């Protein structure tokens, strides 16, 4: 039997039982729709989150105090001995292939101006902080590149702080009080928006040394280091480790390359997408049961036809192929309809709720269609085998 004939024969029975075929296909279609919709949203979120993180660039290394066994954790906050300092950051900056190494320490503090008080986030950093945050200065300038240990009391405002405290006024040159100390405003940042729950606009930026003093901390929370793109990550990590061990006498710090962190985050998000897709897969199973039912009915109804085919010289395997073909055609068409529906609804959702990111990778579509076909195949096996094994004489006698 030639392949086009197989298609022709299976389509003929598909068309002969239009309504029934439609409903059976619908079962699979709904399953695929659910899978595609859910994974599209999952993948959309995945890409959204990764984009949020990688806007800071991917050749970043975070240096954190304390040695942890697993990446990401940070026990340094509790250890008083294990600290990293502004001097460490300065030393790191002189390493080859390092673009910048910016100290970082943050917390909340009260900011006062002209009788108005606001509790905001205070980030202590260095001259390169805007590059770390991928943000721009709107007016004035950012913290100067000066000896961090002799840092002057200068402050740069987030756009929201500026609005709340200086509505309409030019803040440049004014003096603020942060935690009781006077700071001179030298710049205002452009609006940046939320980042993982932190309002980066409701923030003020002061020199790291000042922030350490303000929060009464012995050491930095983190050093943001950026290496030249094209430089080998491993050798950069090695030179950082050597330098810091040299300075500290032991390895009491943790290096977290952004690349690695993104990888870990990515795989976590993948698992979530997969789990959500599997949830949709349950409805696909229900569709499979529908196909099983319909094909079982079809074999019973068409017993005489099966006997005839055998009399005309059809081998058992040909009868098997024909019925499997029908089951697969049902599920393949249902799957395609589901794909269209799933992508359609996902895009529609995105249109109405632009904040909801959706993305349907080709691979997902192909995998979904393949799983639809495999479900058709699996559901078709039992009825098709029954058809193939019918005794032709018996089959011909039923009418």
């Amino acid at each position, binding site marked *: *039997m030639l392949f086009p004939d197989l298609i022709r024969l299976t389509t003929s029975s598909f068309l002969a039982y239009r309504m029934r075929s439609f409903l059976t296909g619908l079962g699979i279609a709904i399953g695929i729709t659910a899978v595609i919709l859910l994974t599209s949203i999952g993948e959309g979120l995945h890409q959204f989150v990764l984009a949020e993180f990688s806007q800071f660039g991917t050749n970043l290394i975070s240096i954190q105090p304390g040695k942890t066994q697993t990446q990401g954790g940070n026990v340094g906050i509790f250890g008083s001995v294990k600290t990293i300092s502004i001097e460490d950051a300065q030393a790191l900056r002189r390493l080859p292939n390092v673009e910048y190494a910016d100290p970082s320490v943050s917390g909340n503090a009260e900011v006062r101006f002209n009788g108005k008080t606001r509790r905001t986030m205070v980030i202590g950093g260095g001259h390169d902080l805007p590059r770390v945050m991928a943000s721009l200065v709107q007016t004035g300038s950012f913290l100067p590149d000066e000896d961090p240990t002799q840092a002057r009391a200068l402050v740069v405002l987030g756009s929201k702080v500026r609005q709340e405290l200086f509505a309409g006024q030019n803040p440049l040159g004014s003096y603020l009080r942060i935690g009781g100390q006077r700071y001179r405003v030298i710049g205002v940042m452009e609006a940046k928006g939320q980042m993982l729950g932190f309002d980066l606009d409701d923030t003020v930026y002061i020199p790291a040394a000042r922030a350490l003093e303000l929060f009464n901390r012995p050491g930095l929370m983190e050093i943001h280091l950026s290496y030249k793109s094209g430089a080998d990550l491993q050798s950069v990590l090695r030179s950082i480790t050597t330098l810091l061990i040299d300075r500290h006498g032991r390895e009491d710090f943790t290096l977290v390359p952004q690349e690695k962190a993104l990888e870990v985050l990515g795989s976590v998000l993948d698992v979530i997408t997969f789990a959500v897709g599997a949830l949709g897969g349950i409805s696909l199973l229900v569709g499979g049961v529908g196909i099983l039912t319909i094909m079982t009915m079809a074999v019973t109804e068409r017993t005489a036809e099966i006997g005839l085919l055998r009399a005309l010289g059809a081998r058992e395997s040909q009868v098997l192929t024909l019925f499997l073909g029908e089951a697969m055609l049902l599920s393949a068409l249902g799957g395609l309809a589901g794909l269209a529906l799933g992508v359609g609804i996902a895009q529609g959702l995105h249109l109405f709720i632009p904040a909801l990111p959706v993305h349907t990778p080709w691979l997902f579509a192909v995998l979904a269609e393949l799983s639809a076909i495999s479900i058709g195949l699996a559901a078709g096996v039992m009825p098709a085998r029954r058809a193939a094994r019918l005794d032709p004489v018996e089959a011909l006698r039923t009418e």
Partner: protein
Amino acid sequence: MIQFENVSRSFMVGGQEVAALRDINLSIAAGDYVSIMGPSGSGKSTLLNLIGLLDRPSSGIYKLDGGNVTALNDEQQARVRSEKIGFVFQSFHLVPRLTAAMNIELPLILAGIPVPERRMRVAQLLQNYGLTDRADHRPDQLSGGQRQRVAIARATSMHPSVLLADEPTGNLDQTTGREVINLLEQLTEQNVTLILVTHDPAIGGRAKRQLHMVDGQIVSKTET
């Protein structure tokens, strides 16, 4: 050439063995025209099914064109059916959702005959059986006589050497039945072996050889 040597066929019914065919010895030459008659339940259809390789004897040997076909496996038997045997049934057995042309094409499809060859054969058959203008009609749009003509066209599409017809006129009126018999008889002129089961003595009497069956046995053979 069909040869039956001590062929028996029995069925188990409720734990009891029912003999449908008893010790049949039979030889039918290529191109023979044979009718089988006998009362209901005498084993005519069972005999035909055995000849058509749809069924296997309980004992005995069946040789087709000199080869022992009882020894073949299912797949090999299907091949022999496809290449050498054509069936015509009382109830036509057309596939209701396929057009007349496609019903005729079915054995060719199953045998994997290439499309151009197939088209030619189907067109020729449609013409031979006066069905050209019915080619795209489905069975429920055809008369009984037309349906049986489609069935005969289908049975001959693979150029079988043996044509088995089990009461082919059973569902037709007399005139139409006569026409169908004529069509079948024409085939014997092309050296096709025709084996015809019938209840109608007038039809059965036309065959060169007439077998009468009673209770699973051939009780008389008439040659004309």
